[in-house]
Structures are given as structure tokens and as C-alpha cells.
């Protein structure tokens, strides 16, 4: 099987730094989902698709840890972050208004790896999994890569970043749990069909871990390399605390510095999860 390892990627990361940032806009996209635009010139200049920033949302002492967010898009000196309100941190983020200041540590982590010669890519997103794939789609399109995108969501209003993908992709397929948009059913079904009738050089996926695992299994079945972006609870974000570990064939890896993007074949999926259907 062809593989695209880090050293072959056409992109090179820059060193992370602590950066003061300010909110440019904070828009509610759907129930519990928002898009915040941040003025973050250093991160905007250096971030690679699939990398994340570690944001200190509150300087209070009620909650103290940073929150990691994939960079969804870059526009000039601004970065965009897609978020879902899940706890105290994202609730506080949803309440931020233009002009408010925060800071971030970033850009962090390994991004998506792109090999020279990649011509056709399949991007598979589940729910908020569109977050790290937006910038990737734009960058791949800029390199002349033909992109197909499959987006899965619970219902139509939660199909995120559709406009972005429709702008840069050859083809966008949507699947919703309730059938309110696109096909009814899981995005993994769409993925399977696309993999069987199209030939791709690479599959990039992000979403719920079980979904990513299924996508990876299907990609492996047709001998196409697959990169996954894994989410873990994280404290430091820079490789020190060992909170965000991922079991891999090469031992314990840290999602924050060795990932969040991993070659799917490297990952030893959580044995407590349901095995994927074949």
C-alpha cells in the first residue's frame, strides 16, 4: 500500500508561540454550533491544514485549562474556528463578542500530510469533523487536487461548511440521519460507494471515532491510504502532560504533537468500541 508519511508531506510546520488574539466575529450557525473568527496574525501565517490552536477562553479561575480547536479556515490575518457547545469552555466561547481578547498557543500538532503527486482526494466528514477539513479542501484545491467531499450530519441545519466545500470540490455528497438533506443514513455508506466507484490517491477523514474507524477500514479494503484526525481530552497541548495518548502500532503517541492526524494503519482503535462493519 502507498503511504504518505510526515517526512514526505509538502507542508512544513512552524514553531508554536503564545499569541494575543481578539474576536472579530462570533456567529451562531445552528443550535449549539458556532463559528468564531479571530484576529491571530502569527497563527494565521503559519498554521497548516489539520493543525490546531489551544485557546485560553477564560482568565478566571472557574475553569483554567485551554481548549484545543482545529483551524477551519484562514483568511489574511484571521483564523476561523468551528465549535460545538459541549461544556463550560465552549459555552464561554459562544458568549464572546467582537473585540474581546484571549490568547492562544499554536499552531500545534501534526497536520494532514499531502504527498507530491496527489491528484484525487476523498474527504469524509462527520458532524463537527468538517472543522479541520475546510482549510485542507481549500489548500488541496489550490494545488490542483480534484476533491470529493462526503459530509454526514444529524439533520440539514447541522450540515456545516457546505458552501466552502461546494466552492472548491468537484463533488459534494451529503448524508443525514433523518434524510432532511442528501441521502438518509450514515456518511460511511456514501464513503463506501465513492470508494468503490472512484479511484482516489488518499482519504482524509474526521468525525466521531467510530465513523473514522469505519472509513479507515473501507479505505484499507480498497488499498487507499487514509489519514484520520483524532480527538482526545488534552491539558497542555504541547506534549508534556500525556493526557491525550493514542495507542498505535509504534506504541503510545500523543494526539497533540504526534497527531492529531495519524495514518489510519498506525492506530490501534479502542478495543472497547464496537468493531467496524465490513
Amino acid at each position, binding site marked *: 500500500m502507498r503511504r504518505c508519511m510526515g517526512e514526505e508531506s509538502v507542508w512544513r510546520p512552524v*514553531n*508554536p*508561540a*503564545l499569541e494575543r488574539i481578539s474576536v472579530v466575529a462570533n456567529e451562531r450557525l445552528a443550535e449549539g454550533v458556532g463559528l468564531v473568527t479571530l484576529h491571530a496574525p502569527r497563527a494565521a501565517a503559519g498554521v497548516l491544514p489539520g493543525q490546531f490552536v489551544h485557546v*485560553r477562553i477564560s482568565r478566571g*479561575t*472557574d*475553569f*483554567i*485549562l*485551554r481548549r484545543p480547536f482545529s483551524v477551519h479556515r484562514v483568511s489574511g490575518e484571521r483564523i476561523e474556528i468551528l465549535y460545538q457547545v459541549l461544556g*463550560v469552555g465552549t459555552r464561554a466561547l459562544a458568549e464572546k463578542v467582537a473585540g474581546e481578547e484571549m490568547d492562544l*498557543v499554536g499552531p500545534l500538532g501534526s497536520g494532514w500530510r499531502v504527498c507530491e503527486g496527489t491528484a484525487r482526494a476523498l474527504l469524509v466528514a462527520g458532524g463537527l469533523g468538517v472543522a479541520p477539513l475546510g482549510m485542507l479542501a481549500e489548500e488541496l484545491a489550490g494545488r490542483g487536487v480534484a476533491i470529493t467531499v462526503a459530509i454526514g450530519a444529524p439533520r440539514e441545519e447541522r450540515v456545516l461548511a457546505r458552501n466552502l466545500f461546494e466552492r472548491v470540490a468537484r463533488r459534494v455528497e451529503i448524508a443525514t440521519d433523518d434524510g432532511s438533506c442528501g441521502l438518509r443514513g450514515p456518511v460511511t455508506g456514501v464513503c463506501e460507494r465513492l470508494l468503490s466507484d472512484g479511484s482516489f490517491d488518499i482519504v482524509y477523514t474526521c468525525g466521531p471515532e467510530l465513523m473514522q474507524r469505519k472509513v479507515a477500514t473501507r479505505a484499507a479494503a480498497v488499498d487507499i491510504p487514509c489519514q484520520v484526525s483524532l480527538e*482526545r*481530552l*488534552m*491539558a*497542555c*497541548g*504541547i*506534549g*508534556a*502532560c*500525556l*493526557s*491525550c*495518548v493514542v495507542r498505535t502500532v509504534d506504541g*503510545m503517541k500523543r494526539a497533540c*504533537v504526534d497527531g492529531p492526524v495519524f495514518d489510519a494503519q498506525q492506530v490501534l482503535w479502542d478495543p472497547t468500541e464496537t468493531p467496524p462493519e465490513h
Partner: protein
Amino acid sequence: MTVKLGGLELRNPVLTASGTFASGREFADFVELERLGAVVTKGVSLDPWDGNASPRVAETASGMLNSIGLQNPGVDAFCENDLAWLADVDVPVIVNVSGHSVAGYVGVIERLERETGVAGYEVNISCPNVDAGGMAFGTECSAAAEVTRACRVATTRLLVVKLTPNVTDIVQIARAVEAEGADALSLINTVLGMAVDVETFRPKLSRVVGGISGPAIKPIALRMVWQVSNAVSVPVIGMGGIMSADDAVEFMLVGATAVAVGTANFIDPTVTMRIVDGLAEFCHARGIERVSDLTGAMKA
């Protein structure tokens, strides 16, 4: 700004708390390591340890719970990678030593005695996240004394013993460890705690219980540093929720000779530099000549 720990003179009293700073390399983009009093490394054991299952952390009010479980690649890999990297950095290195048995602790020290570039050891008898060893040695005077005695025989380098707050009387443990020849004491390690997810009814940590760190535990840590430094004659390294220079001053006023910054490194990776600068400014603004004058200077 210098302080003395046993025979070791540090350029300032600001250390890193074990397990929050790896071996410093991860912070090289954010910190001038040469400006730290010392780097205290992540716990090192004789053989590689995998650590605990995920989730290993949970955020709590003004702090966090962790149950990492001392994941580390073992002392040989530590020497090959971490110590080799630190050899080019002009900062004293204190290696945190972990074990499942007395022989395990001693084995790590004996291996490290063959290496240059180790200024001393911090013996971890206080980790709440491992089944055998760890805190089991730190909650009973005789066991704490036994580990200390064996480690003392193995080295003439600085020997620090790190104590747990999860005991009825930390002063008794401190005295037992001092009596066996510890050069200094580190306190406190994390406070045992837990948290439950009310949506799933499941504990937030895979191991159910873990250690609380961060500002939430600072008052407990201060009280214990005050008690212990009044009861022993060896220097105390104070830690537990230090986020700022003022927090560091507070620990010194109650009796700490040096301080260690832990969880704050996760929140602001540059925090140790701010504390080093802030301590100097604090003393300068008040005409305090030596930072060591702060130690035990709390007024009645």
C-alpha cells in the same frame, strides 16, 4: 536570587513540578530553560510504563484531575533521549524517580549514577495513580523511611523526597524521611479526588480516582508547607497551584526555600519565566535584598 538545596546552589527558587514539564524539551519554544532554578523531570522508572487508560484527565473547578499513571519509557530511554538533550542546556536537572518497589527506586538511581548531568533526585513516594508503589510508600512512616534509606545509600547527590498530602499527618512522614537523610522535601503531590459525568453516570477518569492539582489545592499546600517547614530543618520545595509570582511568594513566606510550578505550565507554557521575573520584581520593589529572605518571613 540564588537559593540552596542541600549542597546544590540554584540560580533562583523556581523549579518545574514533575510530570508537568516532561524533560523541558517540549517547552523549549516557550521558556529559556537556563533561566530556571532547576528542571525537575517527569517520573522515570526502571522499566517502561504504559500508564493508565483514557480518559486520564478531567477538569474541575479551578483545577484538574489526572490519572496519567507515570507513563514513561524507562530509565535507559530517558538517558538516551532526555538526558542527552539536556546535556546541552545549562540548568540543573533533578530526576523524579518512580518505582513499584524499593529495588525499583534504587535501580533507577544506580543507573543514573553512571550519568553526568544529573544534579539530584526527587523520589516520588506520592503518586496516587499507580497500584503498587507510588503513594503506598508515602502514606506510612516506616515505608517512607525505608525507601529514603535505600536511596540515600545509593547516592551522594541531592536527594529530595516528594510527599503526598493524602495522609493524616504529613509532619510525621516528613520527619521520618528527614531522619533517613533526605536533603530536601517536595510537597505537595496531588490531592486524591474524583468526578462523575451526570449524563453518562460514569466516572470522568478511567481509574475512577485521580489527583487534583491547580489553584484549587493551593490553600491545602500552603498549610502543609507551613506545618512541615516548621517541623524539619531541611529545605522544603513548595508546590500546589502556583500560577503567579505572588503565589510563589506566599509559599516562601510560609517556609519554602524553593517552589515548583506545575499545572500552570499547561495553561501558560511561559509561566515559569513570568514567575522568575515577577519574583525579582517583587523583591526589588520592596527592597528585599535576597529572595531567600522571604523564606519563613510570614509574620505572626
